């Protein structure tokens, strides 16, 4: 960033791009070019700024003005009013949902207020496609100073002091892994970055690769120097084309500037990085499956007991395998010191955690919070609570391996150990909020469907156990549950978790077991009472027309695809429960000022019980 210039930062994270932020940037560039401002104003792309819910975002620095929901049509206003006349475009600002007053600086927006951005400090600030931007914020300085040392022992000491735990989800102390790889025998070693982020609703790794790719490369180079590796691989999903593209641009630039390749910065140390595209199997995020996949083999996890990857890893050589976030933390820890890092967070979990906040929450987006913050603070302060006045029901962390925690756990501190104790897990950083309309049996079914499809098929428990649990859950949501199903689900689930071969299987039953533990009444309502309390499972709900509200407009009758609604104009309509297929078209068709169609839990058909 040049001094005394103003910057128009156009967010080009995946979500803002889907909101046409590329066209916005082009329009801004065109508008600025040829004016007096040209030269004093730079328009540049940035990675994900985090506030995805309000995208596309355009940020004006140094004022930190945050324009939300920007369209190409708004470009004239931003340039003429803000840049030329110094008048903030109020209508594009974020408005406080409670007071309705506009907030100009993103520093004052509550979504950003409770966050601590360490890992994401460059995301949304620098241009990820320009190495000079990264160098401008102190990039590659940590690598430079590391390379002046005789070996990696000092890096290890800093890492140990930082108490950084691996950010892939398991939370294994990073320094131990690094030390084990350094101490492992072998002339040839590898550094592998796991960017096979596959949890539904998770996009932390992608955002870092898209927003700050050099931090990952720098972390990997430092790792290479520390453990004695000359080659690194980034295993990234082929479904992340933008991340792959920005990584390739970054690698190319780093090579040309001498931060990658042979004799880095004249130190004699050589290290290069290759991008390896995953073919779409979730299980390849498991470390042994991942290394096999790079070797060109079928990505199957290896059963324990087996040698650690730090001893026998990629191509059977000692291999240091860490998550994107773990590597991206390294330059920061070396720059600020391990002890500084260890002052943030809790006793057992240091630093910050990034989450992809999604689901029934006002502010979806990419967030970073200090470890130990409560779930409540994340969901209500940063997330802005549950939209449309609905009540909170559960929060799911840890992706398909995690668990669903109810309201009583909202004050649980977010760290590795507390979440595990509650029956969920930190995971890689997905966080899905669910409101009262969410059926927890259906949620368990959704996650099981994912795991069942992604099971590698090797071991009996995971291959067949997830299938059986899924089938039983499907039957329950279809109203075909049988007494004893909950016990069977628990028995099978516990066997799957205890008996499976790899981490995917060993946590596959978590969504089932935690929903049973915390929402048993919902399972019982489905199985015993034949109703879905959240009024979500089609087979276990009914629609009826409230006589005191219906004005007889016939709209619902016309919308009904199976002619189940009888009634003349201006007379109250009635739904034939025997014919009704519970598609909900009538509910949608009924004008909201009448809201005469009511969705009820349970069956109203003959013989059914009204709930």
């Amino acid at each position, binding site marked *: 960033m040049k001094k005394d210039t103003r910057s128009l930062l156009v967010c080009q994270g995946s979500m803002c791009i889907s909101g046409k932020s590329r066209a916005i940037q082009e329009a801004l560039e065109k508008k600025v070019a040829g004016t007096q401002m040209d030269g004093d104003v730079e328009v540049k792309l940035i990675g994900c700024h985090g506030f995805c819910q309000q995208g596309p975002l355009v940020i004006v620095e140094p004022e930190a003005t945050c324009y939300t929901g920007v369209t190409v049509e708004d470009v004239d206003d931003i340039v003429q009013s803000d840049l030329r006349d110094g008048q903030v475009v109020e209508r594009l600002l974020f408005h406080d949902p409670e007071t309705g007053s506009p907030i100009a600086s993103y520093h004052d927006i509550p979504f950003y207020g409770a966050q601590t951005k360490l890992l994401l400090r460059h995301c949304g600030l620098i241009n990820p496609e320009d190495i000079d931007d990264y160098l401008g914020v102190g990039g590659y300085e940590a690598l430079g100073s590391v390379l002046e040392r005789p070996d990696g022992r000092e890096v290890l000491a800093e890492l140990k002091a930082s108490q950084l735990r691996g950010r892939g989800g398991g939370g294994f102390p990073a320094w131990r892994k690094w030390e084990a790889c350094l101490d492992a025998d072998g002339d040839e070693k590898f550094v592998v970055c796991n960017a096979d982020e596959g949890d539904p609703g998770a996009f932390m790794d992608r955002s870092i690769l898209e927003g700050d790719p050099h931090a990952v490369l720098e972390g990997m180079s430092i790792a290479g120097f520390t453990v004695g590796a000359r080659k690194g691989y980034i295993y990234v999903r082929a479904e992340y084309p933008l991340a792959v593209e920005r990584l390739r641009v970054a690698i190319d630039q780093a090579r040309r500037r001498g931060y990658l390749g042979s004799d880095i910065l004249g130190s004699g140390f050589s290290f290069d990085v290759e991008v390896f595209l995953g073919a779409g199997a979730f299980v390849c995020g498991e470390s042994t499956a991942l290394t096999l996949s790079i070797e060109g083999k079928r990505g199957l996890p290896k059963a324990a007991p087996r040698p650690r990857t730090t001893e026998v890893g990629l191509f059977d050589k000692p291999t240091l395998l860490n998550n994107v976030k773990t590597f991206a933390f390294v330059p920061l820890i070396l720059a600020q010191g391990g002890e500084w890092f260890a002052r943030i967070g809790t006793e057992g979990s240091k630093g910050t955690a990034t989450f992809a906040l999604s689901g029934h929450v006002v502010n979806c987006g990419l967030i970073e919070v200090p470890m130990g913050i409560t779930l409540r603070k994340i969901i209500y302060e940063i997330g802005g609570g549950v939209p449309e006045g609905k009540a909170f029901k559960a929060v799911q962390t840890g992706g398909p391996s995690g668990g669903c925690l109810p309201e009583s756990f909202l004050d649980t501190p977010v760290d590795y150990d507390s979440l595990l104790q509650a029956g969920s897990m930190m995971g890689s950083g997905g966080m899905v909020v669910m409101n009262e309309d969410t059926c927890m049996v259906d949620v368990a079914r959704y996650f099981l469907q994912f795991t069942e499809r992604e*099971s590698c098929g090797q071991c009996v428990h995971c291959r067949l156990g997830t299938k*059986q649990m899924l089938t039983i859950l499907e039957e329950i949501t279809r109203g075909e549950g049988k007494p004893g199903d909950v016990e069977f689900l628990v028995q099978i689930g516990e066997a799957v978790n205890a008996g499976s071969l790899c981490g995917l299987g060993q946590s596959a039953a978590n969504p089932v077991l935690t929903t049973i533990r915390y929402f048993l009444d919902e399972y019982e309502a489905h199985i015993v009472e034949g109703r879905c309390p959240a009024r979500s499972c089609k087979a276990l709900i009914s629609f009826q027309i409230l006589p005191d509200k219906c004005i007889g407009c016939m709209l619902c009758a016309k919308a009904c695809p199976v002619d189940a609604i009888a009634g003349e104009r201006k007379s109250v309509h009635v739904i034939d429960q025997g014919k009704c297929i519970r598609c909900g078209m009538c509910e949608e068709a009924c004008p909201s000022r009448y809201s005469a169609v009511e969705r009820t839990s349970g069956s109203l058909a003959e013989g059914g019980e009204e709930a």
Partner: protein
Amino acid sequence: MRVHDLTIDGVAVSAPEGTTVLDAARKKGIYIPHLCDRPDLKPVGVCRMCTVEVEGKGLVISCKTPVRDGMVVRTESEGVSKVRQVALELLIADHDSDCLTCAKDTNCSLQRVARHVGVDSPRLARIRRERDRRPLDTSNPFFDFDPNRCILCGICVRTCDELQNINAIDYTFRGTKTLIAGFGNRPRIETNCESCGECVVRCPVGALVPKDSRQPSKLVRTICSFCGCGCGMLLGVRDGEIVSAAGDFKNPASRGRLCVKGRYGYRYVNSPERLTTPLVKRDGEFIPVGWDEALDLVAEKFSESMGDSFATIASAKCTNEENYVVQKFTRVVMGTNNIDHCARL
């Protein structure tokens, strides 16, 4: 080599370094249920059936856990049985239930495990349901593959890879769709499968079975007559006919292995087209004669062609010793070095 002393179910066991708990138990005659393990293949630990409890370590799979001094192993515990019984029921629910007509009946590892572990009947009844039947692969002329009986232990895949180095088959698809097949889910006949049948022998269930389903009434230990390798074999005989052939695991030369000819090429013995007496051509027609007459004729013709007008081509079906005699005869008796061997062609 260092020897470790441990106990398995209270029984003192000693085993050399590197032995797995499962092997140590096997040698001591203690049965630990297992499906994917075989002593002649590397352990992979996918069936989870050999799960045991090790004091201080919890549940581990015995096929990959090496013995350690002072180890206390329990093959039965609440935790073990939880994991094992569910795994067994999951396999049974995903397996054909017509045991009586299965070629592997009474000789099936899944049956043995089921007898040992037992099932929770209500739970099994709940998870047992109609399954989509998957098509059989009957493309190979000697054996059939039935995926509906396959338990995906991977023994066939590892046999083809580790023992035969052919790699004709592997896992395809994933999850419940996982299937053992040729590359790109091609039928076995279209792969580089050599039909050695080593996978068929090792299949612990009735997924890979020979097409010839006749059962022998007795076994005859012999040596394969197809070539000079001298593989040991057990011919299955019924009613004076050979109905099966199996590798002889006690034979030190072949250690149980056979090739396609030895294992499946026995039908020629009872073929009506097989020559059983020498034939001599007279007036353009082959006439059956006795051995003395035939050999006299050969000796007479040989003696008319002594020297370099004579040549011998020896056969790969002969043993080394027989081939030695052939060359000696050619050089010394027939007086020529014109000798060659069919394996060189």
